[in-house]
């Protein structure tokens, strides 16, 4: 954070600093914002600027889709992540057809069945598309029963085979004949939530330590800064690997999950602490903070009521940008076999299956979880950048 240009004095209402006087600068050159630039609260201004950024809005929509999938993964998945079928190992993805022209013109989703040949020596299945048999695909169909959020049992799936005995593999199957689409849907829940949980934890650490460091200054600041510099000078991945290797193998999946989250956020808080400290340092000098202090406000009130609101949006942006970092870290650790362990399904765990050249050569769809990682990281970056740009009153 460089020194800010001369900031105009804060408006009368201290709860919305930087709103009115800074706004006209930001609104220059945009027809949409010329109406009521001074009256709109900061929130509204940010929202207007954010909405103009097409990339960020698209990103936010895709992110919502990811969120929905992770909340309702059991329902979205065509099957369950553990249901296997030995006759369908490495089954390739089936393409959904919408129009049936074999006898006239019918609308309706269906896929073609496979014709399976088993190599008698290697026992590997080879699949060819069998255009004579169709498997109907429907929405809200009955399928594998599952425990929704561990609360109640249900068997409705958003999409799936409406034939009672035939399965469909929209994104292919893995080496045990488990449905990749279902596994990716469940992996989305684990990977996205570990990113969020890790960020939440490092958020608390970063906010408290960075805030203390920036607000108190002096010896406290020096100590915390040395600690941060030290943590940053250790190569992250070996450190993570060392710590995750220390997670006992006999812990159950929930314990491992929590441990990995803690390990990720142990390093992740440093960046956020630096951002928060920088903001505190530059705000401490501001006239409106001095005014609040002279008015007799206590430290808590100055921080909570006067300083924090003026950089909440920056924190939100940094948080959004920190989530992809966590997701990539989890994926990498699990890929190495040091992070989450099967039967937990995360994108990294799924990619472990794609580690050797033979499985990729036979079943390139095993790389699909990696596509999910890339898309998720990409949209989180777009949204984070969008929020940051929208929140910056000087642009």
């Amino acid at each position, binding site marked *: 954070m460089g020194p800010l240009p001369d900031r105009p004095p804060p408006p009368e209402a201290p709860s919305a600093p930087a709103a009115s006087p800074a706004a006209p600068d930001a609104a220059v050159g945009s027809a949409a914002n010329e109406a009521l630039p001074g009256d709109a609260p900061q929130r509204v201004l940010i929202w207007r600027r954010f909405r103009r950024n097409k990339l960020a809005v698209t990103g936010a929509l895709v992110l919502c889709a990811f969120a929905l999938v992770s909340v309702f993964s059991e329902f979205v998945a065509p099957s369950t992540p553990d249901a296997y079928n030995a006759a369908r190992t490495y089954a390739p993805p089936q393409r959904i057809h919408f129009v049936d022209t074999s006898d006239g013109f019918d609308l309706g989703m269906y896929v073609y069945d496979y014709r399976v040949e088993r190599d008698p020596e290697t026992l590997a299945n080879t699949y060819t598309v069998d255009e004579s048999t169709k498997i109907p695909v429907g929405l809200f169909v009955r399928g594998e029963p599952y425990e929704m959020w561990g609360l109640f049992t249900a068997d409705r799936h958003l999409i799936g085979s409406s034939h009672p005995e035939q399965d469909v593999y929209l994104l292919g199957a893995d080496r045990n004949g488990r449905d990749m689409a279902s596994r990716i849907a469940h992996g989305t829940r684990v990977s996205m939530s570990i990113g969020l949980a890790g960020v939440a934890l490092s958020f608390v650490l970063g906010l408290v330590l960075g805030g203390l460091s920036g607000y108190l200054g002096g010896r406290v600041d020096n100590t915390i800064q040395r600690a941060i*510099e*030290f943590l940053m*000078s*250790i*190569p*992250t*991945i*070996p*450190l993570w*690997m*060392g*710590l995750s*290797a*220390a997670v*006992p193998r006999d812990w159950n999946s929930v314990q491992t999950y929590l441990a990995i989250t803690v390990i990720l956020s142990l390093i992740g808080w440093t960046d956020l602490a630096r951002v928060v400290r920088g903001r505190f340092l530059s705000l401490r000098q501001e006239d409106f903070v001095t005014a609040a202090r002279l008015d007799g406000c206590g430290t808590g009130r100055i921080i909570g009521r006067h300083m924090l609101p003026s950089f909440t949006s920056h924190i939100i942006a940094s948080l959004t940008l920190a989530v*992809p970092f966590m997701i*990539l870290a989890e*994926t*990498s650790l699990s*890929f*190495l*076999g*040091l992070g989450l362990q099967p039967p937990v399904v995360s994108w990294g765990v799924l*990619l472990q299956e*794609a*580690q050797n*050249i033979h499985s*990729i*050569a036979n079943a*390139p769809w095993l*790389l699909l979880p*990696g596509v999910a*990682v*890339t*898309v998720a*990281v*990409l949209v989180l*970056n*777009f949204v984070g950048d969008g929020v940051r740009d929208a929140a910056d009153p000087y642009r």
Partner: protein
Amino acid sequence: MRRYVIRRMLYMVPTLFAISLVAFLIIQLPPGNFLSAYIAELSAQGQGVDNAQVRALEERYGLNDPFLVQYWNWISGIVLSGDFGQSFQYHRDVADLMWDRIGLTLVLAVSTLLLSWAIAFPIGVYSAVRQYSVGDYVVTVVGFVGLATPNFMLALIFAWISYRYFGESVGGIVSREYADAAWNIGKVMDVVSNLWIPVLIIGTAGTAALIRVLRANLLDELRKPYVTTARAKGLPEWRVILKYPVRMSLSPFISTIGWILPTLVGGEVMVSIVLSLETTGPLLVEALRNQDMYLAGSFILVLGTLTVIGTLLSDLLLAWWDPRIRYQHVERV
């Protein structure tokens, strides 16, 4: 400047000490040790384990000593006589195992650094000068995707493509026919021809980040009044851009030296496993999995030290390159 250098180097001492402590702590964290894992493996195979033998081994490696004593034995051996201890798994000196691998890692690091500079510099300048042009958009999108894709994903995709379309499986930096050959021109050429692929894969994220930072910095600089002045004076456009704005925005290139090593070691681990390169990464992962404590600890220590040295170098270079940083530091000191 000299005071700054000395002070900066003194800072390294406590950092290095702390890194060594953390490295040792990490390898001590897992419950059990290499010996217990080894014994478990032996008894799983149905072989009896002689208690006296176990005790002798524990005695020899000092496994029952308190933490600080073990740490002291380890670190004093390294500092005083360069002895990194023995690898349990390979029954060889850790130092031998490690130096074999670290050479290649450094070669990879330096070539990745040079390549990402070579790619990022022209592209970054171009996309800043021609902001919002088609080329800029293409670069931005490619850069974002490059940042978002995990390195090992790229390696996997690359492995798949080369298998699928060229019918060869990738792997190794040294081709088979040169595996045992002494170093000569042919072998060097062979290594260079195999090296560019991993270098490209490992460098993607770093290059993309560099392009983005260079573009943002240069855009800020180009808006400043002195650029208008230079242009008004009638300087040719390329001089207007290259003379000061580009110079001012080059600092991220220098700070890269500091972080290239840690990121590289991180990205490299996965890429090396996928492409089966003989660098530090795969060995480190294996050592961590098998609780081969001296090997793993020494790796973390050496890589941490290299990182600290890299940061030092980049800080000094930055201070030399950019007088603003130099004076700011002198004031503070």
